[in-house]
């Protein structure tokens, strides 16, 4: 049987790739994020964030990242940006705000950069 190796997840600096391994790491946390679509869940979450995280089985590192709103740590701990964004919405934060966080600028600066054509590739 001839061997065909998979091409593997790409390694692009500055680019988190949400691959199968990452998704396994983040499964419970992402499930928790997705649960925040209902008002009832958001209320329970806000009443005791750590307890809500424990209910979903988050790891200590994940729970700390969530409670501290350490968005980069959430990504590092297996968060998918589309799921992490559900938590941002709970806080009334926008994707531009997150873009600022990830690039070390303010939301206003990030928005201005986007209006100026975005961060150019290359």
């Amino acid at each position: 049987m001839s061997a065909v190796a998979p091409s593997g997840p790409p390694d692009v600096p500055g680019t988190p790739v949400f691959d199968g391994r990452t998704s396994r790491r983040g499964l419970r946390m992402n499930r928790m994020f997705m649960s925040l679509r209902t008002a009832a869940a958001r209320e329970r979450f806000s009443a005791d964030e750590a307890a809500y995280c424990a209910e979903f089985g988050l790891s200590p590192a994940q729970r700390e990242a969530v409670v501290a709103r350490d968005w980069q740590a959430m990504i590092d701990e297996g968060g998918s940006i589309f799921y992490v964004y559900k938590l941002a919405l709970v806080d009334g934060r926008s994707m531009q705000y997150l873009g600022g966080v990830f690039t070390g600028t303010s939301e206003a600066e990030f928005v201005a950069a986007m209006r100026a054509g975005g961060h150019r590739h290359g």
Partner: protein
Amino acid sequence: MAEVVWGLATSHVPSIGAAMDRGKTETPDWRGLFDGYAPAREWLAQHRPDVAVVVYNDHANGIDLDVVPTFAIGTAEHYAVADEGFGRRPVPDVVGDADLSLHLVESLVDEGFDLTVFQELEVDHGLTVPLSVWTPDPGDAWPCPVVPLLVNVIQYPQPTAARCYALGQALGRAIASYPVDAKVAVLGTGGMSHQLAGARAGLINPEFDAMFLEAIEKDPEKLARIPRADYIRDAGSEGIEMIMWLIMRGAMNERVEKVHSHYFVPASNTAAAIALFDNRAPQDA
């Protein structure tokens, strides 16, 4: 027999829907985008299909990460619009076409595409924003029933661009064999270049986008040969969703006629585009 009459490629950024829902399409931030939609919308209003296949991906609303299908198709008679967290978009629910869905499942599985069948599904902005781009004022109902075709673009390994294009070609053959005299539209959604997380967040690559916009019309095979890693590197970790345009394009004829296209930066964190193709262009002999 059914016939693909047009194909529409369009971004599905949630803020495009939000701008429409909140009456902000004339603001300085948004006018440039929506003005660019106008010619396509006019043409589309004159070319109403009987049914549309919308190729899209879900974003933590209709499906979760417990089950990640590479390709999935809805077979329902009705798709509720998802509440993504703070109330559902004020747009009509989506009427399905179970007959066409089931025909497509049989045809595509026969051809060796390993579809997952969703018997129920809530649809999110990935599907409803493209419908809004097409039909800004749907009233009580969208112009026609819709078959949702979902693609995993979120979790690596996504299908390759080549596999997406091949699926599109098989979709075209399947539509052509549907024994109903129906005009079918196909929408490929997502893109263009963007990246939401990481140090490259805010990435825009207008050169890649221009190349893609040109080639999606004239040389889709070239785009089908691009490896996933290159999409992620050049168009950003979320820009890879442009592979969904290739499914739309694959379902069309070799030669299509561009009705209108428009490129705009930014739609929130994203380069946005629309490209409308008439599938009734004369073909080479």
